[in-house]
């Protein structure tokens, strides 16, 4: 039977109680160590029995260390649903790798090591999901509102590419060609923004196009 840990314990590892696991007194470090030594012997025996084909022995191991596995996984992934799935996966891994268990080692620590690896892997996978969602499912009209370093970098690249189209022209002609000819801005609007006359901008536009055509030949 498993009991709850004493007050002040930093983790929620179970303190075993009943027969050898129930000293019927306040657990002190010496007692806990003695208990663990006994349990380690039981664990080593159980593992040997499992390897000999006794599946009941594996159920004993699960009963004894299930809470440690649960606590470790829950601390990492933070929710019961994932913890339940991962716990089953963890015990499966332990069963498969049981031949690699060294009986001189603490079985609980060895088993919790599996839980830690699985929990961390699940966490890494979960962190990668939002990026995938961002790429796949965010509607296009929302993209301009997303501003991150990657977005800024792409914007600068796009601006550089746009400027490269009209690179051989003077700045005024570049503006006229891109703002009026490509973006559809009116001469009046462009004149308001630049403080130049609409007729001058129209001339710039035409001259810019003529230059580009000439350079292309």
């Amino acid at each position, binding site marked *: 039977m498993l009991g709850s840990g004493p007050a002040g314990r930093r983790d929620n590892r179970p303190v075993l109680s009943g027969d050898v696991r129930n000293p019927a007194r306040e657990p002190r470090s010496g007692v806990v160590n003695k208990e663990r030594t006994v349990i380690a012997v039981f664990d080593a025996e159980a593992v040997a029995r499992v390897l000999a084909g006794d599946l009941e022995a594996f159920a004993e191991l699960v009963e004894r260390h299930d809470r440690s596995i649960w606590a470790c996984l829950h601390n990492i992934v933070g929710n019961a649903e994932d913890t339940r799935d991962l716990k089953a996966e963890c015990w499966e891994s332990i069963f498969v790798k049981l031949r690699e268990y060294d009986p001189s080692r603490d079985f609980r620590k060895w088993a919790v090591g599996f839980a830690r690896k699985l929990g961390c892997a699940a966490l890494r996978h979960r962190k990668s999901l939002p990026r995938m969602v961002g790429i796949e499912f965010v509607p296009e009209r929302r*993209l301009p509102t997303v501003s991150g370093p990657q977005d800024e970098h792409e914007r600068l*690249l796009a601006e550089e590419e746009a400027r490269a189209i009209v690179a051989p022209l003077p*700045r005024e002609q570049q*503006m006229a060609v*891109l703002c009026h*000819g490509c*973006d559809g801005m009116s001469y009046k609007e462009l004149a308001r923004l630049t403080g130049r006359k609409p007729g001058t901008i129209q001339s710039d536009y035409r001259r810019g196009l003529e230059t580009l*055509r*000439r350079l292309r030949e």
Partner: protein
Amino acid sequence: MALDCSGYSTPCDAELAAMEEYIALLHKGTEPLVEEFLKGYPQFAESLRPVLEAAVMVNHKYRKIKARYPALSVKRLFGLDAAGHLP
């Protein structure tokens, strides 16, 4: 069809008006063939052809970039979005 230039002060204005007509069609996405369009303005065919061909070329390149990055703003590129004047 020959253009009636009587409403323009100089023939050059009529030519510019024809150019603007074509640019307006480009912006609408109609994009008629330059040669077809110039049939309506034979008197400007030689002078307008290179200009309109250049306009088509530049528009194609710009649209490709805009398709990849819809947020591209030429106002921002030239610093016209915030200040309202040349930087």
